C-alpha cells in the first residue's frame, strides 16, 4: 500500500500540468461546495433565530378557526381568553382594518398585542402611551410601502364586533426594522387593550404567543397549540428547496472535474500499457495494478483538498467573519426571513461530508477505467501492443 502511494504520487507529479489542471478544477468544486452549503446553513440558522425572536416565540396557541394564511378566517377566528391561564402566554387579537395615509386607502391587518410583552423582539413598549390617537407600530417595509414615518398621523378605519364601521386618527409611535417579512408587510400593531376598547371584543384573542417559560404543549378546547418546529416548518422547507436547487450548480462543477479525472485516467492507462506489462512481469497481480491506478485517482482528490484548503480557508474564513451583503429591495416578495448580511457556517459535519463525497467520487471515476487492466494480456502489454 505504501509503495502504491509512493508510486502514485510520483506518477502524478511526473505528469506535471495535466495533474495540476485536474487538481485546480477539483479544488474549486470542493471550495464552492463548502461555500454554498455553508451559506445555506448560515442563512437557515439566522432565519430560524430571527423568526423565533420576532414571530413564533416558544409556540402559538391559535384559535381553531384561524388560519394565518387565510384572511377570511380573521372575522370568526377569535374567542375569549378568560378561561385560559395566560401567565406565560401573550394574547394577540387580529382584525381587518384600513388606513388612509395621505388620502390613499390601504387594507391592513390590525394586531393588538400587550405593550409589556417579552416573548417577541417587537418594540411594543412604545405602544404604552396616553395619546388620544390610536398608537401604531409598523415595520420598515410597511413604512416604505405606505409612506408613513414615525410621528405621522393617519386615519384608521375598522369594524367593531357587530360589523359597525368606526374611524379615528392613529399615530405612528415607532418603525421597527426586522428581517422577518411575515410580521411586517400589511400589518399594524397596537395595544391590545386599545383594540379591545375600540372593537368591543374585550378579553378576546386570535392567538397567543408562548414565552420560554410556557410548559403546556397540548391543545385546549377551541385552541390548537403549534410548536416552534411546526411554525418553522415552512421556512425549513423553503431552505431545503433552495439547497437542493443550488446543488445543481456545484454538482455540475463536480461532474466536470470528475470527467477530467476520468479522461486523464483513460489516457494514462492507454499510454502506459508497457509500464502495466512491466508491473505484471515483475510479479504484481492485475488487481494490484488496478489498485495502483485507482490510488492515483484518489490522490487527485487529496491534492485537490490540500490546494483547496490553501486558498479556500482564508476566503471562507473572511466571509464567515464579515458576512456577505445580500441586497434585497423588497423583502416581502421573498416571503421568508433573509438578512441583508448573511454569515456562512461551516460545520464539522459539512466539511467531513464534503471531503468524503469528493474522495469517494474521485475514487470511483478512477476505478472505472482502471478495471480494463484486468482484461489486458500481460505479454501484449509488455510488447507495447495496443489492446
Amino acid at each position, binding site marked *: 500500500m505504501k509503495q502504491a502511494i509512493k508510486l502514485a504520487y510520483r506518477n502524478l507529479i511526473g505528469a506535471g500540468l495535466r495533474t495540476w489542471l485536474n487538481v485546480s478544477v477539483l479544488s474549486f468544486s470542493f471550495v464552492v461546495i463548502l461555500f454554498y452549503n455553508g451559506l445555506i446553513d448560515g442563512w437557515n440558522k439566522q432565519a430560524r433565530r430571527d423568526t423565533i425572536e420576532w414571530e413564533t416565540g416558544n409556540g402559538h396557541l391559535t384559535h381553531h378557526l384561524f388560519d394565518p394564511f387565510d384572511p377570511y378566517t380573521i372575522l370568526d377566528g377569535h374567542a375569549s381568553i378568560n378561561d385560559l391561564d395566560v401567565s406565560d402566554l401573550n394574547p394577540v387579537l387580529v382584525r381587518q382594518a384600513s388606513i388612509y395615509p395621505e388620502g390613499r386607502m390601504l387594507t391592513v391587518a390590525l394586531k393588538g398585542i400587550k405593550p409589556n410583552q417579552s416573548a417577541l423582539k417587537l418594540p411594543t413598549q412604545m405602544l404604552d402611551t396616553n395619546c388620544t390617537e390610536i398608537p401604531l407600530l409598523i415595520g420598515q417595509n410597511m413604512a416604505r410601502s405606505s409612506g408613513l414615518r414615525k410621528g405621522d398621523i393617519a386615519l384608521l378605519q375598522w369594524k367593531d364586533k357587530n*360589523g359597525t364601521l368606526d374611524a379615528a386618527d392613529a399615530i405612528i409611535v415607532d418603525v421597527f426594522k426586522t428581517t422577518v417579512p411575515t410580521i411586517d408587510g400589511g400589518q399594524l400593531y397596537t395595544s391590545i387593550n386599545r383594540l379591545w376598547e375600540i372593537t368591543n371584543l374585550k378579553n378576546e384573542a386570535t392567538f397567543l404567543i408562548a414565552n420560554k417559560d410556557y410548559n403546556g404543549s397540548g391543545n385546549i378546547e377551541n385552541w390548537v397549540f403549534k410548536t416552534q418546529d411546526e411554525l418553522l416548518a415552512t421556512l425549513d422547507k423553503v431552505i431545503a428547496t433552495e439547497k437542493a436547487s443550488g446543488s445543481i450548480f456545484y454538482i455540475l462543477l463536480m461532474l466536470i472535474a470528475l470527467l477530467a479525472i476520468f479522461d486523464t485516467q483513460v489516457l494514462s492507462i492507454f499510454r502506459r500499457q508497457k509500464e502495466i506489462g512491466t508491473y505484471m512481469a515483475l510479479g504484481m497481480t492485475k488487481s494490484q495494478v488496478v489498485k495502483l491506478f485507482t490510488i492515483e485517482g484518489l490522490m487527485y482528490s487529496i491534492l485537490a483538498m490540500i490546494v483547496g484548503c490553501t486558498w479556500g480557508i482564508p476566503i471562507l474564513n473572511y466571509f464567515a467573519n464579515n458576512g456577505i451583503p445580500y441586497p434585497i429591495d423588497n423583502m416581502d416578495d421573498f416571503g421568508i426571513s433573509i438578512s441583508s448580511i448573511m454569515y456562512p457556517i461551516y460545520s464539522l459535519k459539512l466539511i467531513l461530508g464534503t471531503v468524503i463525497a469528493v474522495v469517494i467520487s474521485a475514487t470511483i471515476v478512477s476505478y472505472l477505467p482502471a478495471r480494463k487492466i484486468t482484461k489486458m494480456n500481460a505479454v501484449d502489454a509488455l510488447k507495447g501492443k495496443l489492446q
Partner: protein
Amino acid sequence: MKYAIILLAILGFSFAPQQYPNADTIIKNIDDNMYSNSLISTSKMTIYGKRNNRTITSKSYTQGSTKSFTEYLAPAREKGTKMLKLEDKLWIYSPSSDRTIQISGHMLKQSLMGSDLSYEDMMDERELTDIYNAKVTGSEVIDGRKAWVIALTAKVTDATYAKQKVWVDQERYVPLRQDMIAKSGKLLKRVTLSNVQKISGRWFPKKMNYKDMLKQGKGTDFEFVSIQFNPKIPVHIFSKASLKK
C-alpha cells in the same frame, strides 16, 4: 297694555319651537320612493381616477332587499362580469377566468370595480326604518330645494354605519344628500343625489355620487339610464346557474 300684548304675541311666535314633521313619516315616505318589491335598471357608473375616468354600464335585477343580480355590459374588459347577491352572500363571476368566487368577510370592504362604493355598501339593502331611529334636526336648502335635515341613529347593533345624516326634499321626499358617519363621529361616506325625476308615479334620483370622504378624489357617479319598478322577474335569474350563462 294692548301694545304690550301684541308685542308679546309676536315675540311668542318668534320663540315658539319650530314644528318639524315626524321623522319616521319622512323616512317611510323616502322608503316608499326608493324601494320597491322588484326593480330592473340599466345604469352607468363613472369612476374618476387620478389619470383617467372609466364608465361601466350594467343591468341589474333586484327582488326585495335580499336578492340582486347584476351583469356588466361595457366596456369590453368588464363585459360579461356578473354579480349575484342572495341574503348575506355575494358571488362574482369573471368570464376571463370562467370562475365564480364568493366575496365575504374582509373582501366586502374592497372597492366595487375600483369605485368609491364597496361591496358591503351594496349588501345592506334594508329599509332605513328597519335600521335607524330618526329625528328631524333642521331645515336647509340643497341645490335650490328645501330639505329636512334628519339625524339617523342606529337602533340595531349590526348597522354598517352607526349614524347617518340625510337631507330630504321637503316636497318630493327624496334624499338629496346622505352622510354616513362612524361611531366616533368621523364622516366616512357622502352620497349626493340629483336629477330627480318622476318615474312610475314616484320621485327617484337618477344620478348619485358616492364619495369616500377618507380618500382623495371626485368619487363615483352612478346614473340610471332606465328603471322599471315592480316588474316580474323570473326566479332563475337569482340563481348561481345564471352567473355562468
